[in-house]
């Protein structure tokens, strides 16, 4: 920061990419490259510390002193989804499950959440009650307690009805070391179910795009399913992540980059619901980039692949789990998919949100 408190462009580590977009554009929040650049060139240099530098879904914290400090995970997320209620979920359920899942994929047992509301003047109380009730239900299902919160109101026209921020903490499981940095060559890649459900559910109810068949969001708390895997074969799981914004492709690219490995997947075995695939075809979107809110990706030592798959398939949230690929030393930091035609294609990180094509 400069002396006036205004960011000093020249003091950033590499400000050049940010100068291309001197104002915030929607793609900065799209889970793609522009958002990553904000983190890399603005937030990280400004806040730099060892906990932040891991850039996990949750920060790993050690509290207390001595030889055996308690280890926690902490995470936060904000929710601005429109519409507030959609097939299969709501902003309230998302706000709880999103933070619960970020903690769970870090190897923690989520326990306590905060909830902050930014409400727009004129927002109907009945709708707020429905949102809060959905949060309470989600918290109960996930087994977490909402223990602190805040409410702010902004003038009419300055918000979109209701924004929610949640933060959460959980105790890290002992003896487990999952991290986006730990994917190893030979690891198999397992996804816990069909991809793209949430993103297409939201799209299907947006103005001007109503589909005949209702696609439901997969919004769910994953801590129970993940605990089942970690309880049984915790040491075999090297990395986990929930592929939310930016979808499966962004998650796999992030882990490939963080672990400095290549990832090869077989496009034909990635589970996608027919109605999601159809909606994607219609809009010219690729389901690998579409958001999920109730899926996890596991990087598992190959000898445990069958075990993890059977545990997932036995869980209600993991019935459609599939082994979709493997970590390789070839093409480091790159995600390569084998197509149905038997050819290979690279799946890169998107710049921002996918844009529906003209024709």
């Amino acid at each position: 920061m400069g002396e006036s408190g205004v960011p000093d462009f020249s003091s950033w580590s590499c400000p050049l990419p940010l100068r291309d977009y001197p104002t915030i554009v929607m793609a900065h929040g799209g889970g793609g490259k522009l958002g990553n650049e904000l983190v890399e060139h603005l937030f990280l240099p400004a806040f730099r510390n060892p906990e932040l530098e891991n850039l996990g879904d949750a920060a790993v914290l050690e509290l207390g002193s001595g030889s055996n400090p308690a280890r926690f995970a902490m995470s936060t997320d904000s929710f601005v989804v429109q519409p507030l209620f959609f097939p299969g979920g709501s902003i309230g359920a998302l706000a709880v499950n999103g933070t619960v899942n970020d903690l769970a994929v870090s190897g923690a047992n989520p326990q306590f959440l905060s909830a902050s509301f930014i409400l727009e003047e004129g927002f109907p109380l009945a709708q707020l009650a429905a949102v809060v009730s959905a949060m309470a239900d989600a918290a109960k299902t996930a087994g977490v307690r909402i223990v602190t919160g805040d409410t702010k109101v902004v003038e009419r026209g300055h918000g979109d009805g209701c924004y929610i921020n949640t933060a959460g903490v959980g105790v890290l499981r002992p003896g487990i070391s999952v991290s986006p940095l730990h994917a190893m060559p030979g690891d198999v890649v397992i996804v816990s179910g069909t991809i793209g459900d949430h993103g297409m559910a939201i799209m299907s109810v947006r103005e001007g795009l109503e589909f005949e068949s209702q696609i439901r969001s997969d919004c769910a708390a994953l801590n129970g399913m993940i605990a089942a895997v970690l309880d049984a074969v915790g040491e075999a799981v090297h990395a986990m992540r929930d592929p939310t914004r930016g979808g499966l492709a962004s998650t796999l690219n992030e882990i490939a980059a963080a672990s400095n490995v290549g990832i090869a997947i077989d496009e034909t075995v990635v589970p996608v619901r027919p109605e999601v695939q159809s909606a994607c075809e219609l809009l010219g979107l690729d389901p690998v980039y579409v958001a999920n809110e109730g899926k996890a990706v596991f990087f598992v030592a190959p000898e445990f692949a069958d075990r993890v798959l059977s545990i997932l398939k036995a869980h209600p949230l993991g019935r459609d789990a599939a082994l979709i690929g493997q970590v390789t030393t070839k093409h480091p930091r790159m995600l390569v998919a084998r197509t149905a035609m038997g050819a290979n294609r690279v799946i890169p990180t998107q710049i921002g949100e996918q844009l529906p094509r003209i024709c």
Partner: protein
Amino acid sequence: MKYLTEFRNGEIAQRMAREIALITTRRWKIMEVCGGQTHSIIKNGIDQMLPAAVEMVHGPGCPVCVTPLELIDKALAIAAQPRVIFCSFGDMLRVPGTEGDLFQVKGRGGDVRVVYSPLDAVDLAVKNPDKQVVFFGVGFETTAPANAMSVHVAKRRGLKNFSLLVSHVLVPPAIEAIMSAPGNQVQAFLAAGHVCSVMGYWEYPPLADKFGIPIVVTGFEPLDLLDGIRRAVLQLERGEHRVENAYERIVTYAGNLEAQKMLAEVFEVRDRAWRGIGVIPNSGWRLSAAYRAFDAEERFQIAGIRTVESPLCHAGDVLRGALKPAECPAFAKQCTPRHPLGATMVSSEGACAAYFNYGRFLSAEELANAGAVHG
């Protein structure tokens, strides 16, 4: 998915590729005109399946890519005005003008909206009588009927606050221009299936005769494309030059007559500048005299636009099929989807973006040897 899955069968595709290899005795260059086909060829790796002697040349059929820079700049200027709602299909938002793109206009407070149909923009005009609603009408013959319909509806409803920024281009004059260009090497064309679903293919026999080239109306799925290529090679090997329809489940000879009637009423043919290529005679549409009042260029007299193209960008050569994207010195170096120097790197249908997005910065050998999947 019916009508899609059965045209994506990997085994049949391999068989068709082998058949193409069997009938090929010489080197052939075949151009697919449509950007959607380029996208599908690269995404599915169709070009990797073909014998080395059959080379696919990517044509100028990405509407986003060939929209002149001047018109993008006009769009930016209009979208930045107060009391304007500027509507567009998603692709156009990231196309760089001389200064910035529509995303940035939106970030600075411009009311820029992605719509899925031009009729949604007409609805916006009805709901916002105090605002001027402009739709960026970009595309080939495929998108033109819906755009024509939007103006038709706006006129019928007496809307004074709806207008169309028109950048419509036509396929047959582009084929004529490519074949007439000095040094042209293209020997056959895959005609764009969805363009022909609207226009039919009655426009193509004179071109096939004039230039002695096979033209095959082709779809977009892997088996469609392989069938189109197979038929083109077969004609080339036999020394024939006919128009064939390999997309019969969608395309008829006459096309969609209702749509053509609407187009003839709303639009008139004019010369058009194609970004990276130049002016092609009679290659585009503008609103006809009866609908001229809905022309955004007339309504918003934007003057003083000075366009500057990147000197490093070879998009023109790429669009003419003279250069493969990966052969451009700037490809994947100065020019990436994050820092596009030209529109061919922006649009998902642009040849450069297709090459980048599907990993064609790796060598063919590296790509073929990419990691084996376990299990």
